[in-house]
């Protein structure tokens, strides 16, 4: 949440996005110590289709970089697709596949990268997910992201404070 207090992040997000929040999990406070809890930041189209996700807390520079990236990738996909939904989706799939290849060394299209298993970090998993299922709706993936990528249980329970 600290990254969201940054003015640069705030200005950019306020200019390009409307924002909201949703409680999807809980955590426990034991003797003043927070146990568990996490955050996922979704960049979506207004109909709740996921363009990009940041899984877990990040610093302001990362938040700003990722927000700028998806805004530009979205604009480029719109330009290139010229209203064609399939091409639009394919453009976003490619954008995630490109980052997966460049930043995480996993090329989903190459024939010679299958040797051994690669340990992807959270962001690598997000790119893999969105390269496999671009423009998936938030309600279809939020459990997968919170439980399988972030390792937190989705829950409607309130925060429990134990002293």
């Amino acid at each position, binding site marked *: 949440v600290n990254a969201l207090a940054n003015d640069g992040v705030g200005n950019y997000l306020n200019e390009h996005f*409307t924002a909201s929040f949703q409680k999807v*999990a809980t955590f426990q406070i034991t003797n003043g110590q927070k146990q568990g*809890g996490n955050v996922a930041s979704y960049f979506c189209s207004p109909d709740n289709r996921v*363009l990009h996700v940041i899984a877990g807390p990040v610093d302001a520079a990362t938040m700003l970089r990722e927000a700028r990236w998806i805004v530009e990738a979205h604009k480029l996909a719109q330009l290139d697709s010229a209203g064609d939904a399939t091409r639009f989706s394919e453009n976003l799939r490619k954008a995630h596949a490109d980052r997966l290849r460049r930043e995480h060394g996993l090329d989903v299209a190459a*024939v010679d990268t299958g040797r051994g298993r690669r340990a992807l970090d959270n962001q690598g998993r997000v790119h893999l997910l969105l390269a496999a*299922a671009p423009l998936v709706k938030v309600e279809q993936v939020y459990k*997968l992201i919170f439980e399988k990528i972030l390792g937190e249980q989705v829950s409607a329970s309130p925060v429990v404070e134990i002293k």
Partner: protein
Amino acid sequence: VLSAALATSLLAAGFVGALGITARQGAVAVKIELLSHEIATVERTERAQASADPRTRPEQRSEGESTPSAIASAPIELEASAGRDLANPAADVLSSRPTCESYGTAIQFSNRPTEAARQARQESKLLFLLHVSGNFEDAKFT
């Protein structure tokens, strides 16, 4: 006979080569397969829930899909899932009155995701949605 034998050999070599490629792609393909399978399972469940719930019939859904309008007919299109709080406008309305606050950040947050989505459509913006553990409104519990 010679040319037929040559053609057969080439076909066999091509087949073996294809098998090699498939094996090397295995690790990546398995990962994507697993993710796709999980998403497909969620899709099937939601489709079943949506078809059983009259509130989610197409004529009940809100207008104004985003980005290229043809996305509404894309293969991954699903009915909105009114059975879940996350996508349920009714639950959203019941949660609280719509407000827009910064909650200690530099960003203006609407307390209703559906309101933020409507606003995004209206202002030709994208939607930033934060999923958190705990209560976002209370710094102590976030």
